[in-house]
């Protein structure tokens, strides 16, 4: 509330200064909240990748005439040339003596660049990367710490 035009002579008051400080503080805090909000979108895409990987995993297990409890571990390799493979390791089943490794080319399966988490930083360098790994009964992402 400004009573007269002569307030200008006084410049910024202490109360104004405190309000500006609060605005800056909450503004910065809200900015980081907005960044977190944007990451939700990335996480949703990561979950979609995991779901797609899980569906493919079940298909492969079925095709291999195996069962999920036999699956020891699995991971998706993404090479620097954008080729990608899913590697599955099965424990020996009934009547089998040795564990078995199955490698599936994901590009042939039409798995379009879903082996990279959208939260990862930068492109893939020369060695391959593993963003998605299956163990302990579910898929895990190396970059997304939130799993739903």
């Amino acid at each position: 509330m400004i009573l007269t035009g002569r307030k200008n002579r006084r410049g910024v008051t202490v109360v104004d200064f405190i309000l500006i400080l609060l605005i800056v503080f909450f503004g910065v805090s809200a900015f980081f909240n907005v960044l977190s909000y944007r990451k939700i979108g990335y996480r949703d895409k990561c979950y979609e990748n995991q779901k797609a990987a899980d569906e493919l995993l079940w298909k492969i297990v079925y095709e291999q005439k195996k069962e999920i409890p036999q699956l020891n571990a699995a991971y998706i390799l993404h090479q620097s040339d954008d080729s990608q493979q899913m590697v599955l390791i099965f424990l020996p089943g009934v009547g089998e003596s040795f564990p078995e490794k199955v490698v599936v080319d994901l590009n042939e399966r039409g798995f379009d660049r879903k082996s990279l988490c959208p939260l990862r930083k930068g492109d893939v360098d020369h060695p391959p990367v593993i963003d998605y790994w299956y163990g302990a009964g579910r898929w895990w992402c190396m970059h997304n710490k939130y799993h739903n």
Partner: protein
Amino acid sequence: MKCYIHPREDALYECHVCGKPICGDCMKFGDDNEITCPKCTLDPDGLVHLEEMEENERLYDEQFSKGPGLSLKQRLAVKVNPIFILILLAIIGLKVYIGYQVDKSQVLVNFSDEKLMERGSPAAQFTYLAAQVFRHHDEHGKWPKNLDKLVGDYIDKEPLILKTNDAYSYTRESQVGFVLSVPNAKRFGFLKLYLSADGDIFIE
């Protein structure tokens, strides 16, 4: 130096008669065209003008900080800028809304070695460790010198083979990058279990 009539104004001149500092508003010219203050000016209009100015100054002081009738609360109320209040409320509202949306959409499930101990297998832990080695290279541009370098940023604690006190075998090699293997893999049903830097895992 301030004007002796308007204490908030900078003095620009000095009265030729009494020597007191005065601002531009108070500046008058005497008979000899010399700068004088209103009190020293013989012109009766100057005296009237002085009375007006003193009255204005008194009203001003009453309305602002020097006013004896204003409480601290009243003074603060005078100085609060409503635009700042609106901006602050808008930002806080935005922050609360986004915070609510963020909290609602995320469930933090931390992966830990303990979970692997409960539900995992040596091969699962082995491949998880390999994934972290790749990740280290991806983020640092080089293979870790040893697996202890992964502790903290990539794994919780020193990697020991599940349900044993044995360490994994990890060596950096110039040709193939690295080789990670499980020593004495027979105890877990494998003849061999190792992995190289091209991501190929060898099991028998």
